[in-house]
């Protein structure tokens, strides 16, 4: 319970339109400003690479290549959708945590556990019919993610270990677990480097073009389901109440421990599903480490979407497009693909700074963070959650 958490004000109808307008205007302004700041980095890279020859139009060249590689044409769009699918699921995993007042930085580890679960079951069932192998492999990945997410919830609920530190530690532990399995029981015998067999029939079916797998559809359905859970079910009401005001939730007879564990398990399941989708839909096998930036991307997506499950879809599409076009940008303009990470950080920075100035200009002052974020910062000593 922070001293700053307040009950949301009840707003008349006209304010609702204003609220929707802010929800759209703020992210758009953040993206535009980040693109401008990114130009500085593009100039810097160009100056260093070409020993001081200044190319004024360089950012335009780079951004044009970024758009070309992500949106212009059928294949680039499918690539964008494929990149966006895990970001939708990861973004949901962070967003549902925010709704409950939990900061899930563990999507990386949940994703990796999803990869492990789906590859283990997928390889075992690779000769079975698709309709048996595929759903079971997806389920295994989801459950592995849910298990590691639920563990965070249990630790938080019963010992008060702060989820920010435990999720990050579990990210490293999950990476080691995957490496141990891939170089141990799942390893293809006599392969030069540790790698697993292909998941064969457990692969996700393709429905769009040559590579568009149904993980894209699963992600969209998941966003709708999470929205439905949050706003149309008792559990969702409890999650939102516990996030907005834990004291009130307890007085109302809700059990905070149960809510924390369930929320983290659902979040972990979403992260695991993202990993399963990538493994079964894109790579079909894995080495000892699974390269992904989904952990931090997911936080960016959730913050940009202001934790709204449906808004997660366009936010993930934006970051998916940037990831998809980054390669083209590096080839055509020579701008390193890490520019996407810089852009992402700048978007977040503007997102948290801008509302403060907007309020100062309109003379309203007061608490500045998005309402979901208000309850995140709590002490991380061992304070167990009562009830």
């Amino acid at each position, binding site marked *: 319970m922070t001293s700053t958490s307040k009950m949301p004000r009840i707003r008349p109808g006209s304010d609702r339109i204003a609220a929707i307008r802010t929800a759209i205007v703020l992210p758009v302004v953040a993206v535009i400003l980040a693109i401008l700041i990114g130009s500085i980095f593009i100039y810097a890279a160009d100056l260093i690479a070409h020993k001081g020859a200044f190319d004024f139009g360089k950012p335009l060249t780079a951004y044009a290549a970024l758009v070309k590689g992500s949106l212009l044409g059928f294949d680039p769009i499918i690539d964008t959708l494929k990149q966006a699918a895990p970001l939708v699921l990861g973004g949901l995993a962070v967003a549902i945590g925010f709704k409950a007042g939990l900061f899930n930085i563990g999507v990386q580890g949940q994703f990796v556990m999803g990869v492990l679960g789906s590859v283990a079951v997928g390889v075992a069932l690779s000769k079975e019919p698709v309709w048996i192998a595929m759903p079971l492999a997806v389920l295994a990945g989801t459950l592995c993610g849910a298990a590691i997410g639920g563990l965070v919830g249990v630790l938080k609920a019963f010992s008060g270990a702060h989820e920010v530190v435990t999720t990050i530690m579990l990210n490293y*532990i999950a990476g*080691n677990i995957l490496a141990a399995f891939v170089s141990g029981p799942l390893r293809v015998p006599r392969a030069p480097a540790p790698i697993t067999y292909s998941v064969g029939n457990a692969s996700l079916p393709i429905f769009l073009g040559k590579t568009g797998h149904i993980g894209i559809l699963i992600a969209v359905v998941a966003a709708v389901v999470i929205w439905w859970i949050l706003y149309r079910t008792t559990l969702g009401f409890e999650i939102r109440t516990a996030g907005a005001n834990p004291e009130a939730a307890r007085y109302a007879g809700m059990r905070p421990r149960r809510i924390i564990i369930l929320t983290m398990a659902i979040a972990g399941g979403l992260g695991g599903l993202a990993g399963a989708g990538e493994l079964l839909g894109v790579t079909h096998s894995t080495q000892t480490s699974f390269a992904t930036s989904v952990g931090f991307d997911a936080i960016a997506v959730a913050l940009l979407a202001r934790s709204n499950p449906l808004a997660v879809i366009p936010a993930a599409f934006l970051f998916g497009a940037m990831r998809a076009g980054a390669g083209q940008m590096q080839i055509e303009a020579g701008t390193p693909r890490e520019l996407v990470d810089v852009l992402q950080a700048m978007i977040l920075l503007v997102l*948290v700074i801008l509302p*403060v100035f907007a309020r100062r200009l309109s003379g309203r002052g007061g608490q500045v963070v998005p309402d979901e974020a208000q309850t995140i910062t709590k002490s991380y000593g061992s304070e167990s959650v009562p009830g």
Partner: protein
Amino acid sequence: MDSVLYGIPVLGILFQIGGYLVAVLPTAAPTILAAATPLGFGALCGVVCERSGVVNIGIEGTMLTAAFTGWIVAIAAVAVIGPGEPGPLGVTPALIIGLVAAILSAVGVSLLHAWLSISLRVDQIISGTIINIAAIGITGYLNNVISAASPTSAGQFSAIQLPTAVTDLPLVGWLFETILNQGPITISLLVCVVVLQVLLFRSRWGLRTRAVGEHPKAAETVGIDVIRLRYRNVLIGGVFAGLGGAFLSMELSNSFQSDGVAGRGFIALAAMIVGRWTPVGAFGAALFFSLFLTLGQTINFLPPGGDLGVIVQALPAQVFSALPYIATIVVLTGLIGRSIPPAADGRPYEREATS
């Protein structure tokens, strides 16, 4: 009855682990202290920030920024002023310039965190996370840009070489070697820990810091400028994080890896919690974590014998790389006693309207 019987081999293994530790500790101690350096500095950064009520989970990103800046500025300095002749401890002018740059960059990052979390009152954990993401993005981007010129290194700080007459002393020789046979940054950590412990509990600044961290309103009523003190503490924390980062790219190694910090900033936070927000306690916890960090290597070059050796051989190597992270979680769950954070930790302070 059965459980008692099962207990005998377990006890035997525990004895073997104890014996193994006693056998290898003198040899491994310098490595353990060196590996504890970034953790210790990170934890000191956490202590000064959080004692004044500012949560800083951006230590990881701050150290990464410092590691990168120190490394690249030292290389640039070599290009400008030449490599120079290494003095004692491997000190060259270029390395000193790099070290200063590393500290300045970390203070700059801390200033951003202070501005976001103290002035703008953004949620402090969100602010720290943004710093971590930005640090990974910007250092990764610049590292990629620079890698085209394939820079190598400006060298690194090295250890004092003690005369063998000292290190061969019976019983205490290894202790001297552990503490003194280290690079300058590690030795400065030992000094910083003691000085900070004394200042925090014996000086006016320390009393004020603790007052602001526990009850900022009360502190303000007796005339302490809460905002200014928090700013100052976060910036001092930046100096420590900067030294920790510089250690990674200028003393432990002579190069920068984009994943080089590898969660040490977060383990440092855990060390701070286990050390109950005191410098000496945090340093002790850092040593404990670093024991786990180095255990994997130690087991490789000094494999234990007997049943313990058989067990260790049978385990996948990843078990040992995961050990520090597992230990962090176990410790956080409060198995080693509870630790209570400063009461106002993480809460933005809003000055009441005067007039």
